[in-house]
């Protein structure tokens, strides 16, 4: 039975690795300027984790095979290196391995979170609420008008609680249900939650960030490929969480300008 157990461990380990090696289920193609570093970090981590996983399972299986049900007169033996050798190996090999991952990973993280958006990044405000996203563009004046929570009214489609009558900055704000952005243009996304926690996840953009009620956060990114992508909520926000989504359309500058004109006319 021990030998069968050892073989089972090895078979499971190999079968587990096959979909990874064949790239059966992977993230979609990256369409961001920062995503390559994340993907590279993922690949390096996969290589190190994969080798550790296979090595540990194989050694475990080998020892189970080799040392189970020995002859009654067999003498016990100790691993020659002893525990000290294993501790040193763990400290050196695994310690260096994980520290290297951590240190190199800082760059990928810093690219997204520790560098400010450029001065000419396009600001767009995303608002999350049960169970829809809305997006607000500042219009020609480049300024977003203030939010008046008490004025929020979905029935009259005042999703942001704007008061254009009293706030000049709100008058040219454009609110949409779809997020459109020009390709190769840096976006500065200002994230505001109307009610509870939500999240903004676009797999292709390599972007995921929570909306924090009471704390507006922001991030910046540049999309490099025209197309239509799904924005989904990843923070459990209530019964309609599974269905909270919007589309991100990455367009040429010309198409974006046309879209913006059309949306402005509909406000």
């Amino acid at each position, binding site marked *: 039975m021990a030998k069968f157990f050892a073989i089972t461990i090895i078979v499971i380990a190999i079968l587990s690795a096959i979909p990874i090696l064949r790239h059966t289920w992977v993230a979609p193609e990256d369409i961001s300027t920062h995503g390559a570093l994340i993907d590279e970090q993922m690949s390096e981590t996969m290589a190190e984790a994969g080798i550790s996983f296979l090595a540990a399972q194989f050694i475990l299986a080998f020892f189970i095979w080799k040392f189970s049900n020995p002859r009654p007169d067999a003498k016990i033996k100790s691993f020659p290196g002893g525990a000290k050798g294993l501790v040193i190996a763990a400290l050196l090999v695994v310690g260096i391995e994980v520290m290297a991952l951590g240190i190199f990973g800082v760059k990928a993280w810093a690219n997204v979170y520790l560098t400010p958006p450029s001065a000419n990044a396009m600001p767009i405000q995303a608002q999350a609420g049960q169970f829809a996203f809305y997006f607000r563009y500042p219009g020609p004046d480049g300024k977003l008008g203030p939010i008046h*929570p008490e004025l929020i009214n979905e029935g009259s489609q005042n999703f942001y609680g704007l008061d254009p009558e009293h706030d000049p900055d709100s008058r040219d704000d454009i609110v949409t249900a779809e997020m459109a952005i020009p390709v190769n243009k840096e976006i500065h996304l200002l994230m505001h939650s109307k009610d509870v926690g939500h999240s903004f996840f676009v797999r292709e953009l390599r972007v995921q960030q929570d909306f924090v009620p009471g704390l507006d956060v922001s991030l910046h990114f540049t999309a490099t490929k025209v197309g239509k992508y799904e924005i989904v909520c990843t923070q459990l926000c209530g019964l309609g969480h599974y269905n909270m989504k919007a589309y991100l359309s990455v367009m040429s500058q010309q198409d974006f300008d046309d879209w913006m004109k059309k949306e402005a006319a509909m406000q």
Partner: protein
Amino acid sequence: MHDVAAHAAHHGPPTSFIRKHVFSLDHKVIGKQYYALALVAALVGMALSWFMRIHLAWNSAAIPGLQLLSKNGAPGGVMTPEYYLQLMTMHGTIMVFFVLTTAPFAAFGNFFLPIQVGADDMPFPHFNMMSFWVTFAGFVVLMASFFTGDGPTLGGWTQYAPLNAVGPVGGPGQGLGVVLWAASIALFCVGQLLGALNFIPTTLDLRLKGMSLMRLPLSAWGWFITSCMGLTAFAVLMPACILVILDHVAGTSFFVASNLVMNDQLLPHSGGSTLLWQHLFWFFGHPEVYIAIVPGIGIVSHILITNMRKPMLSQRVLIYSMGALAVLSYMVYGHHMFVSGMNPFSSLAFSFPTLVITIPSTIVVLVWTFSLYGSKLRINSASLFALGFISMFVSGGVSGFFLAQPSIDIMLHATYFVVGHFHLVMGVAAMFGIFGATYFWFPKMAGRMMNETLGKLHFWLSFVGAYCIFMPFHYLGMAGNVRRYSTFVDDFLQPLIPVHQFITVAALITGAAQLIFVYNLIHSRFWGKPAPDNPWEATSLEWSTATPPPWDNWGGKHPVVYHDPYQYGVQSSVGDYVMQASPEQVKTEHEEK
């Protein structure tokens, strides 16, 4: 080390039925009560996971009888999205608190810690009794939420703010359901704190003559370290739960920020902090992972040594590693919050300790694995589950490499990758520890042997089944499959549904295999072969006493400890081992004082 005779006077033998079986002061009965509670909770939690898995794989399928549990939640047996979330929340809460904490720590720890240190009982038997009954009350309160108001909370076992504090406007179960959840967990915390208050002095003050700390078995070390973690972690979660209740019933705003709008109405709260809850919760939540797994590490070490017929390469290294895991577990909790809106520099600060925690984990695995070298490994149900624990601990552990890094977490956060990770490393591995412990200690607890054939069948189906369920979770996560969705409506999730169907079939089969265990447990309890005092030829003190142990553990004759806990591979008058309480002198190779 204590005066045994004086301690024996703490409570006499029980005489009434109530004192013997219900409100018992005997740590062994309390341990069995915890085990029974964990077993019932595990069966409920597993049934909920079946319902969830069927719904995820075949969304419009009617589950016969589910409408009896909730007419509104499952009209005609078909689950609504909100009911899915409610069942999911209950599954997570029941499993994490009432199974993974209760069984390995409270059940086995209660029964065996005093015996392994040589005590008659815990130092505060009344606290110990309260510990169980308060925990039981917590379970009843949680179960009550199924049958009150609009059902249990749907906010997940993490109960993120402000959804947990806004009240009924947040959705079904977000009013009374949350209050019951928070009350249940607060009660649970009280129970565990009372437990820790007993475990720590039991270990430090009630050891027998000759039982130095380094002579404690590794299982005792696991429970001791866990109780130290419990004392600090549950002490944070309990007040956090009370604050949630106050937000509901006293008009406070600890977790609700100003100017939030729901259903076009401004919420009557102001000034609270969303992230405060996450910090409080995860300050408990990450140590909780180790509260669930460190007893398993100790138990698996104990079982393996007995079945390898040789000590570990170093007991001291394993103890220090468990201690390092416990200390580090408080310094890593922020890795659950990389994309929460927390300061991005904090993410880096939490990332490095998370990566460092890989080192003691690796040392534990290396010591286990290389201790197998040159052993005389016996294969039985207990050792199979202990070896399976190592395999699962490795598989669940390596995915931690990914989740420790904030940059990668951007892609994997809140996906099934995380679900696969924690199910393998703290769910399946901990369950394997519980199963291994059951097969190993059942003879001492019940006085009868379990059926080995059924035990091995249970192992094979569980081992292969668990991999079939949880390894594909990682693949789903890598493809971006978001967790906590009741239905996969997004375009990119459609091609992944066949994977979910495979997982569901595996979950149903693996779940059914657990019924073999339940049958074996109940059948063996009444009709199993009578167990000898030391069926595994083991060395620690629990095997020195009668089977099952008398009420004071020793029948008035207290042993003296002469040896380290694991004197195997020696030549003695009884075989290849010397019991800790045996005065026989043999040439020993492993003294770790």
